[in-house]
């Protein structure tokens, strides 16, 4: 696969690993948070931690939109799907996402709710055209990457007068979450030790560009390196972060220059701003209510807004108290630190969202790393 295989080269990786080992001074520890699940996936899938020196530690951030979706939003979606007139379209990742009390869309479907997996918002449009008498609701989730396709769908629905189609919007914004992590002193200093830098989002950044990270770097003095999702991309970004730390710099650097520019994708941003506007706040699993971190449909598109159309009530659901998702999403704990990990909570019976998506920190650990007890390096 072009533009993928080249960035998975074993020989280069070993060279890069040695370079990181050489440049990461042995007298200090480096703690980098990869914000995105895509990076977490690459780290686990290719066994990158095996290649990194012991004093370079990766902390898994909240970068999976399923993991950060609170149980309340799943519960709301289940209630919506239970309405007889509604056909709910969802991305496959969401099917097992846990709501409260063992609820999930998978379970609602098994009990008779009309829930369809889609691969694309284009599928939802097709479906709405096929069943004009049904209320087809698209359960929209995702960061800036996944928001423009939802915006396009709404604009097509408007143009085609698809009255039956609407959106249950759960789109969230990455920089706001990073800001929230950095602003909170508990999060900034995990176990009393500061995060030294961020591996920044890949595909989110193709849309928003690198510019939105610049104020963060200014405000908090932490380097951010935007990186691709291939394993060599991640390793190069780590090397770049080590160098910034060593040199006392804190800049936004762009490792992923083949797909990311400073300005991002203007057309995609325009589509989004046509259709969506900021919510005052939005709940993130693990981060709580984060100001200006979510999107909703603009008033002009209220007809396509499922929350308005079906008078959906906001719900509040307490997380399972034993679940450490919250700390894990903040980078404060690792999956193996959770008592439920691998016993009560497995990918078949997920308790927290980190176990749901295979990109979730707990699921990635379970699938790719659950034996490496020896590698569990607790924070000092």
């Amino acid at each position, binding site marked *: 696969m072009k533009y993928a295989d080249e960035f998975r080269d074993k020989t280069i990786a070993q*060279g890069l*690993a040695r370079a990181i080992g050489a440049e990461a001074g042995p007298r200090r520890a480096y703690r980098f948070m990869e914000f995105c699940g895509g990076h977490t996936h690459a780290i686990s899938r290719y066994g990158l931690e095996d290649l990194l020196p012991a004093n370079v530690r990766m902390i898994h951030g909240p970068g999976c939109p399923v993991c950060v979706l609170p149980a309340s939003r799943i519960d709301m979606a289940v209630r919506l799907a239970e309405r007889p007139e509604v056909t709910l379209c969802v991305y496959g990742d969401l099917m097992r996402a846990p709501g409260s009390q063992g609820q999930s869309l998978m379970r609602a479907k098994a009990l008779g709710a009309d829930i369809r997996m889609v691969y694309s918002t284009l599928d939802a449009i097709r479906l709405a055209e096929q069943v004009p008498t049904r209320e087809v609701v698209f359960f929209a989730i995702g960061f800036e*990457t996944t928001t423009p396709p939802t915006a*396009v769908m709404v604009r097509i629905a408007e143009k085609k007068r698809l009255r039956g189609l609407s959106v249950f919007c759960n789109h969230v914004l990455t920089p706001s979450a990073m800001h929230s992590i950095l602003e909170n002193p508990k999060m900034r200093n995990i176990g009393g030790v500061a995060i030294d830098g961020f591996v920044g989002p890949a595909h989110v950044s193709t849309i928003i560009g690198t510019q939105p990270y610049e104020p963060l770097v200014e405000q908090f003095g932490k380097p951010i390196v935007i990186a691709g999702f291939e394993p060599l991309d991640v390793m190069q970004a780590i090397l770049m972060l080590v160098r910034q730390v060593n040199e006392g710099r804190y800049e936004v650097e762009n490792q992923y220059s083949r797909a990311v520019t400073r300005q991002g994708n203007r057309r995609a941003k325009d589509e989004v701003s046509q259709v969506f506007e900021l919510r005052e706040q939005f709940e993130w699993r693990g981060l709580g209510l984060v100001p200006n971190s979510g999107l909703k449909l603009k008033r002009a598109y209220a007809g396509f807004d499922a929350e308005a159309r079906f008078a959906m009530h906001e719900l509040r659901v307490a997380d399972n108290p034993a679940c450490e998702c919250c700390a894990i999403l903040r980078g404060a704990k690792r999956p193996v630190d959770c008592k439920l990990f691998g016993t009560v909570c497995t990918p078949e019976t997920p308790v927290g969202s980190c176990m749901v998506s295979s990109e979730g920190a707990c699921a990635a650990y379970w699938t790719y790393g659950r034996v490496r007890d020896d590698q569990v390096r607790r924070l000092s």
Partner: protein
Amino acid sequence: MCLSVPAKISKILPDDMAIVSIDGVSLEISIALVEELDVGDNVLVHVGYALSKIDPTEAKRTLELLQELGSAGREPRS
């Protein structure tokens, strides 16, 4: 997160649609989100949409840099 795959545009269709191909797989996607695409361009595909064009020059530059860093790493400095 944001699973996305590089693919080459093999055909431009009406209504902002296009066919991309990857290793014997072809997929009809929307190119509504990316300006000025031509057959032969490579794009990142996410949930059935092209997100951005892959810049071949930048890709080459990154690869060269990676190779350089990799070889540099081969002879440990410290």
